[in-house]
């Protein structure tokens, strides 16, 4: 009995589902008690039926895919820039000073605070949204990569040399695996930041690129006072967040750092 109970609690997915159900029940009780105005606190079945309606007529799927494609493009660009900048910093100390200065200037600036400037420079199209995504992903990614490279003990490289590895071998078999936990953490932070950036930018810019993304959908739900639909949009964001966290990153860690014995 005790073992079964432990198994139940140890299974991450079951535990997560359990808490989601509990939170759902609390939500429904509050909604049914009518403490809050039903227009601002709808019941779960209202939210779900509105979500199902949006899914079946295809709008929400197209718009989510569009937002995801923006994130993908932004994160890919940020990734390349981050690898180049942190790689150069690992080689040259002068360059590292430059990158650290850049981080000190740019990292504290929220993307939304930069909006007026971005509108002036880039305009209000897709390019502007991607720029905001790059801005919000790039700096945490670089910081994590730099920390990752710095945290590698010198003795690792020496061991590599003892094994007769050349420079490429040391990078491939020692530096990259050793820095990977930091890299994955940076990616996780970047991914979460990219979601926030894309949703808030879409709410400001409207239907960039013809159909608009999830942020535009949520904004439209707000102005037409479709609160259940608004929650439907939020559920989609949460759902994708959990999906990426529990499946994509979990897999990535399993086949890399956990397999190599870098983390528990």
């Amino acid at each position: 009995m005790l073992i079964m109970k432990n198994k139940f609690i140890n299974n991450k997915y079951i535990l997560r589902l359990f808490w989601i159900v509990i939170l759902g029940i609390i939500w429904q009780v509050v909604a049914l008690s009518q403490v809050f105005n039903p227009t601002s606190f709808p019941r779960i079945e209202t939210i779900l039926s509105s979500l199902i309606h949006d899914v079946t007529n295809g709008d929400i799927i197209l718009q989510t895919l569009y937002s995801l494609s923006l994130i993908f493009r932004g994160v890919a660009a940020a990734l390349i820039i981050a690898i180049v900048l942190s790689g150069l910093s690992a080689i040259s100390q002068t360059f590292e000073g430059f990158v650290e200065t850049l981080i000190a200037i740019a990292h504290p600036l929220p993307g939304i605070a930069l909006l007026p400037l971005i509108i002036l420079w880039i305009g209000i199209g897709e390019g502007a949204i991607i720029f905001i995504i790059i801005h919000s992903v790039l700096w945490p990614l670089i910081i994590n990569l730099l920390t990752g490279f710095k945290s590698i003990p010198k003795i690792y490289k020496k061991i590599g040399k003892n094994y007769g590895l050349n420079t490429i071998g040391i990078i491939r078999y020692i530096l990259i695996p050793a820095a990977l936990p930091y890299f994955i953490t940076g990616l996780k932070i970047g991914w979460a930041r990219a979601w926030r950036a894309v949703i808030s930018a879409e709410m400001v810019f409207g239907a960039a690129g013809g159909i608009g993304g999830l942020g535009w959908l949520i904004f439209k739900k707000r102005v037409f006072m479709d609160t259940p639909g608004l929650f439907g949009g939020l559920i989609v964001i949460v759902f994708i967040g959990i999906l990426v966290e529990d499946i994509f990153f979990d897999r990535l860690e399993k086949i890399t750092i956990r397999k190599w014995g870098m983390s528990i």
Partner: protein
Amino acid sequence: MEKLTKIHRICIVLIIFVIVLSLNGCTLNNDTSQNNEIRIAEQYGLAYAPLQIMKNKEILKKRLPQTQIIWKQMGNTAAIREGMISNEVDIGFMAIPPFLIGWDKGMDWKIASGLSSMPIGLITYKDGINSIKDLTTNDRIALPQPGSIQHILLSMASEKAFSDSHKLDNQLVTMAHPDGMNALLAKKDISAHFTSPPYIFKELDNEGFHQVLTGEEAMGKDFTFIIGVATKEFHDMSSETYEAFLDSLHEAIDFINDHPQEAASILAKEYDLPKEEVLRYITADGTKYTSKVKGLEDFTDFMKRNNYISNSFQNLEEVLWEDVNYEK
């Protein structure tokens, strides 16, 4: 239970302590809807001029010396509506379509008075665009937000032009009037801007900028631009304050109409514009300050027909408080 360590017990006591304290705070904060308070929400623009007169000449204060008057200037209608749902605002000023959206979704509120009619319309700098039929799918249109009166008027025009009221919906860019004006003047991303005074006048003062569509053309007749809406709670619970507010509002409206010169110099300070300019704006063709509510049924019919709302009213008492000056 004996398994609880000392740290556990301290934690539990702390948690209970914090919860009790914060619940205490809740009850204190909830006590905001006292009778001697009136909270009025407005937006920015010349359409709200009578409210500036009311503030500046202290018209309401003279009638309600004991009442605390709180003015809130909000960025958009959705914020005012949300403020009224959460009982942070008693009287809100907005256009007819946002009111209808709230009413349709079950908000307990009705129109208390009209405020103004304004020349509103779609402005562009592009020579090739002379009607909305000339807009291509690459032309983006700035307006305050979907569901705003600007959006509904544009939809009315696109129903007439394309037999599809939603045709331009995915070319919209949500911008507050000042931002939209700057974006249009930059001649870069925004091809057209659906706006109201003073922005519409300022844009038209630029060479090559012209009007593609007027609100009247879209609607087919003139209509009330801004109305005052009161929640049922405020109307029923604070009926004397409500009456005093309406009287003050009508006095302020009459003042602008009877003394435009004096009103213009007061408003010039409030809006930080030259007096002559303000005088030109408030006496322009199509600018009317009046308590009359006009065009309600046309908006309702159109919005119902195109699924922006799902209910329409059977009789006027469902949407108007008593003694509203109404014209079909």
